[in-house]
């Protein structure tokens, strides 16, 4: 019965995809590209939430800081952001480690509200520091490859943003391999599932948290570096992505990293589907929250039935 239902859902999805491709291929193209960006920013946050159990409200600001760092490196050396991401990721990993040791670690056993206030404070601190250092004026470096395009008949569309899809997939695969195939990764997974149990069997929980926080900071640092190829940067550029990332994680379920990618695809395609109609072009934010509410409610109802 369940098998038949799965087949029906798969067939319906396949028919919908083919229908959209025939009617307006750009809905799928831009939808997937948007999904790549959403997922690659949200996945590092999902890693922290899944293992350290902290909602890092400064997540977007970490990315913003990495973007400014990349901007300065590229301006000073003429380096391409795809090269600059290596030193930037190293710096943000060290920065994440420092932030963990100095602040997050002290609040791990505090009530969740205190943790939220702490990371919110970090977000404000980073934003204001960027404002003081760079002003609110936006900055952007142009790269020719960002405008790379493909022509199919009369249809011309940009292909550069597929880079973010590749990054998101690489993050999902890489983290899966790390968490399931390496000793450190398995320890991190164990700490995420049961920190007390992990400590009893000899895993250094604090060290694992520090490592995961640093790893996630490195990943968001890499994203910050690549982000400047596509977007302008300014002190408040990161904050909308914090909320979006958190909602995608809530939609996927805490600890479900491939689920973040799937949620992002659902969201990106839905947004672009609505943008294709004149009357619903401004509904993208509404569909975002409608999808989240629907998925979370559906999961709760299924949980109750089970």
């Amino acid at each position, binding site marked *: 019965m369940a098998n038949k239902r799965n087949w029906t859902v798969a067939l319906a999805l396949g028919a919908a995809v083919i229908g959209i491709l025939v009617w307006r291929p*750009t809905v799928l193209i831009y939808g997937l*590209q948007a999904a790549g960006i959403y997922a690659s920013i949200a996945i590092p946050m999902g890693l922290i939430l899944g293992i350290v159990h902290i909602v890092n409200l400064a997540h977007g600001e970490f990315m913003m800081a990495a973007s400014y760092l990349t901007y300065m490196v590229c301006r000073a050396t003429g380096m391409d952001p795809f090269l600059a991401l290596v030193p930037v990721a190293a710096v943000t990993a060290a920065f994440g480690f420092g932030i963990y040791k100095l602040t997050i670690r002290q609040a791990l056993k505090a009530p969740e509200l205190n943790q939220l206030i702490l990371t919110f404070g970090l977000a404000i601190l980073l934003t204001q520091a960027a404002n003081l250092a760079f002003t609110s004026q936006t900055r952007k470096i*142009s790269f020719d490859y960002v405008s790379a395009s493909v022509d199919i008949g009369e249809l011309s569309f940009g292909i550069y943003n597929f880079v973010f899809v590749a990054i998101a997939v690489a993050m999902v695969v890489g983290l899966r391999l790390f968490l399931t195939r390496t000793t450190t990764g398995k320890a991190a997974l164990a700490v995420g599932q049961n920190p007390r149990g992990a400590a009893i069997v000899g895993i250094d929980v604090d060290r694992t948290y520090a490592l995961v926080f640093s790893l996630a900071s490195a990943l968001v640092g890499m994203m910050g570096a690549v982000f400047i190829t596509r977007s*302008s940067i300014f002190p408040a550029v990161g904050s909308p992505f914090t909320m979006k990332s958190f909602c995608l994680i809530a939609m996927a379920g805490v600890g479900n990293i491939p689920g973040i990618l799937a949620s992002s695809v659902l969201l990106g395609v839905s947004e672009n589907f609505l943008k*294709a109609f*004149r009357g619903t072009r401004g509904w993208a934010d509404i569909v975002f929250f409608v999808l989240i509410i629907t998925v979370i409610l559906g999961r709760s109802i299924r949980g109750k039935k089970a």
Partner: protein
Amino acid sequence: MKRTFVALALIAAAAMAFGQGTIKIGATWPLADITGKQGSMAAQQAVDEINKAGGVLGRQLELIVIDDELKADKGAAAIEKLVTVDNVDLIIGGMSSGVALGQVPAMKKYGKVVVATGAASSTVEAALGADADWYFHLHPWDYNQGASYAQGWDEIQKKYPNVKIKKIFLAYEEGAFGKASFDQTKILFGAEGRYQIDGAPFKSAALGGGDYGSVLEAAKMYKPDLFLWAGYDADALPMLEQAKAMKFSPGIYLGAPPGWPVGFGTSRLSENVMLYGMWAPSINEVSPVSKKFYDGFVAKYKAEPATYFAPLSYSAVYIVADAIKRAGSTDTAALIKALKETKYESPLGQTVTFTPAKIIKNQGIKNQKILQWQRGRQEVIWPFESATAKPVYPFPKW
């Protein structure tokens, strides 16, 4: 004892004389924003220049700036403090219409002379009402801007017959600013069927958006002669990059953000993009006042003015200083009378006078300018009297 009393009396007299000696100009701007930051810097530059030249009526000017933080409540509280605690003689400044709306009740309560550098929304004018004869508005209202653009394009098409505009597409950010721009465009350009107007909203990168694929696709399908986008500086280059990727090249590609990103002109993509604005450094070539302002700003702050709020705020200080000089005092009635007779050759490339608007009696600048990025510089192409270059048309194919 006697000597102590005399010393105290002398100190008190000196303090009073010093207090009376300065003419206090209160100001509010959003200091974390480039518009407010550079606006306040340029106002201070004007104050320093005037003080260096001997001040006004033998007294020095003192500028007291409060950050309105782009919040209406902070802006209103700033007016209260400037009037009741700092005892300013008059008020200048402002950028956001939302903040100005919050400030209007406090301004009305005290009736101090205000020379406003911001607030484009005509809802502010409606809130002020016709009785606010103490309010002098330098920045054009939204309907002034729209009307001047329509006039500008009419005149450009007449002077350059190869420029032909019939279909206009407006990509507007989905907030109040973009929606108001679209509504004004439909009213002003769509009247009597002169132009065909269409448009679509997009979420600005400044507010967490930055995906322009669908809006550019809608624009490309419409095949406009003039493509106009109303958003923020964060949208400028990413939108151009996506337009290039989609091979969307309308006859005129025009942006109307309040400011441009750092180094926009150094990007090859900026070449021949048109823009609406009030001032550009190229005006230095046709206006000695602009050159004086520009050179002074660069010398003082080691940075270029990046927003027209800088010359506008600089102008506000010179306008009030000139009015105080002619009025002979800071008395409100005398100052209002003198301000009404203002004739100030501004660094914006035009002479500022105050004439009635739809509701208020004292409207300063009514025209915006049409400019174009050429070889990394913003060149004025309309009004023709302050033009620094001819328009390059059409926008080249990618």
